[in-house]
């Protein structure tokens, strides 16, 4: 019986190679091949975005705390959304986040711009300066948080540095950087500025490097002062770069989380709790998963509107630049 089966087994060996050939031939057809990227992209979209998004929407419509089995969840409708909108802490956290982002990004743009301008004008050591100024961006946020927590200690280096100025202004030189509600907010902003000015510096430096030299030289030949060259020639040319820096950094700054957790854990009280930290707390500390899902959906709407505005600005800048022949 065994011998009788042997030839059949041998004959079956090449069989597995057939289907791949068939698949390859099928894929090679023009009408199929052109659909492959579309299917892959759509597949990834479904897997990475649409399914989690759909799940989040679904969970946001339930009443579910993770401290109960999911089987006990029940349909709540828009109740969670109403609860989020009625939660003063949500609005405080959102407002605080916008405040952090506005102040931090403004400072980062200003300092990054000045540094980039100076480095762009430097003849020697440009690479060294560039490398040094980029270091903060590459430091792991946890390390930044730890280092700044040391810097901000009551008797730490920052207070020793500002003590003479504070004494002159009549302030208590021992500023409670991490425990006073206002000072702690500034502590977070300054740590963010230290780390992310590198990014605006990099964007602006690339902008300065791309400025057309003939235009600047022509202005100089025509007797324009350095201030006029900067104000009338360079700055208008840099507008698209500035918009990119504003949009990119603002989007990132609105997600501020690390410094709030590492430096103050949202305290004192909740005075440094950002909206990202608020969400984390609702979900992972209070186990209010459906409430958190609703809050994140509302945030998505708010941030999407901002992103749309940012993209609109970018596109408009690009259109203006093209119309002016700079694109």
């Amino acid at each position, binding site marked *: 019986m065994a011998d009788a089966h042997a030839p059949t087994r041998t004959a079956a060996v090449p069989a597995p190679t057939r289907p791949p050939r068939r698949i390859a031939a099928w894929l090679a057809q023009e009408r199929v091949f052109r659909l492959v990227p579309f299917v892959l992209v759509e597949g990834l979209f479904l897997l990475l975005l649409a399914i989690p998004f759909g799940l989040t929407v679904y969970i946001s419509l339930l009443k579910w*705390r*993770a*401290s*109960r*089995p999911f089987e006990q969840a029940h349909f709540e409708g828009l109740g969670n959304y109403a609860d989020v909108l009625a939660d003063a802490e949500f609005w405080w956290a959102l407002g605080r986040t916008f405040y952090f982002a506005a102040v931090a990004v403004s400072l980062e743009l200003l300092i990054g711009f000045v540094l980039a301008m100076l480095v762009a004008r430097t003849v020697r050591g440009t690479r060294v300066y560039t490398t040094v100024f980029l270091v903060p961006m590459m430091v792991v946020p946890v390390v930044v948080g730890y280092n700044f927590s040391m810097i901000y*200690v*009551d*008797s730490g280096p920052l207070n020793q540095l500002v003590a003479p100025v504070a004494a002159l202004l009549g302030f208590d030189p*021992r500023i*409670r*950087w*991490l*425990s*006073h*509600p206002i000072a*702690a907010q500034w502590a977070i902003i300054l740590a963010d500025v230290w780390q992310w000015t590198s990014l605006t510096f990099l964007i602006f430096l690339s902008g300065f490097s791309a400025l057309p030299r003939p235009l600047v030289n022509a202005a100089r030949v025509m007797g324009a002062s350095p201030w006029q060259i900067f104000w009338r020639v360079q700055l208008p040319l840099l507008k698209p770069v500035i918009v990119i820096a504003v949009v990119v950094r603002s989007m990132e700054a609105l997600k501020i989380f690390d410094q709030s957790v590492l430096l*103050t*854990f*949202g*305290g*004192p*009280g*909740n*005075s440094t709790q950002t909206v990202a930290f608020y969400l984390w*707390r609702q979900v*992972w*500390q*209070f*186990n*209010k*998963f459906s409430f958190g899902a609703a809050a994140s959906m509302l945030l998505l709407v708010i941030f999407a509107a901002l992103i749309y505005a940012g993209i609109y600005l970018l596109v408009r800048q690009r259109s203006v630049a093209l119309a002016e022949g700079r694109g």
Partner: protein
Amino acid sequence: MRILTIVLAAMLVVGTGATAGAQVVPGATVEERAVNGAKAYLQKHNLKNVEQTILLSSLYRNSFPDFSERWEKLTGVTIKIVPLGYTDIPAKIMAEAVAKTGEFDMFNDFPYTAPDAAGAGVLIPLDPYAARGKPDFSGVAPGLSHQQYYQGKLYTFVLDGDHLILVLRQDLIDNPQVKAEYRAKFKKDPGCPATMEEWERQAEFFHTKPGQSRWGMTFDKGLYGAMGYRSVNFSYRHFPAYFGGLLFDKDMNPRIATPQGVKAIKQFASIVKYMPPDIQGWGTPQIYPFWASGQAYSVMSFPSVVGFANSNEKSVIKAKQLACLVPQTDAGGKLVRRSPQAAGTGYMVSKYSKHPELAYWFVQWLTGPTVGDEAIAHPKGFWDPFRESNLKNAAIRQRFGEQFLATTMENSKYATSLLMLEGNYEYFNVLDKHLADVMNGNATAEEAAKRIEAGWNKVTNDVGRARQVQTWRQGVESGIYLDKFE
């Protein structure tokens, strides 16, 4: 007679069955039974080279391996450690409740994690195993031993007396000039304060500005009159010492917006003026070294602060500490002493473990009276004394000192649990937030009390009042909070 014989036979059969279902594992001690239980389990399931994983508080990464290695020698079971900061562990446990990966066999965290984690189904009740392993909880004060249970089921094995203690600077109290000045002012010798008011008066007395010379000494960096935990995530652990009673009535109505609550909030905030300015941003990593640096007169803290200041290389107050009972507080006209179990390392078993019984045997072994005592005596550990047997253990006596040991054990009689309720971290956050507002002058104690009351009611209603009331009453009746309903 025949009927009686049938009934007796039936009782015998039922009784035998019940005994067989919970047959006690052989062994003279808790630890022996744990080892035998583990070996029997391995043999029954024909298991070899088993590795189990524990999500461990990173505080124990230097001491825990000594015990896990011993367990491996005894049973052949390897314990893999995944260290994590204790503030992050609850979220990790809840993530496991959702993901159900089975990545962890055991969790090491405070008992306060149990209500949410048990509700989520990630913890396994340990009663069936305990019925066979016969752990020994004797000599553990009610406020600590009952913490191991939630809704009547055993979920956690506690191995840590983290009930708060007050520590003073013995060297300052013994200073003759200090004594004379103190006696002249208060008509008594300085020493352990009887009440919170007296502690604050002492804090005021000892509080010294930087550069000031007093009692034949110059305090270059100043001397802060008091220290205590006042940051978010920590304030709630201390507040019950000031409140001195049940935070809710039997229907879960908050008792915070009462004269007792308002007074407690005021007292909690008032003493902050004698603490280091940064205190609202400090946790243990800041408070312990600062205390050891000798820049404060007193500290209310976890008991391990004493061991830290006695053993830390840079400490300037080695053998200069006086451990005291937590001062009494005026709770509605009567003085009561309450020492909140502010943390308390515990061990829980994951429902998604491949071998939960095996994990249980390790937990029973580690927390048993003999091995547990060895852990508490471990020089690199943060396990604090909590069991009467600790008093007789020579290594523990040597490590902690007789005076401290006697005090913390006396203090354990007043140990009370924080809220063992579903959603407890949300209750805690409401309290923390509004206490911070009072400490920063952004709200009065009365305003804060009303806001806390509203916030707590919101949490109770959101979780489900009926369920919370039932759990709360059950907890109060068990003696976990020491106080009973009036």
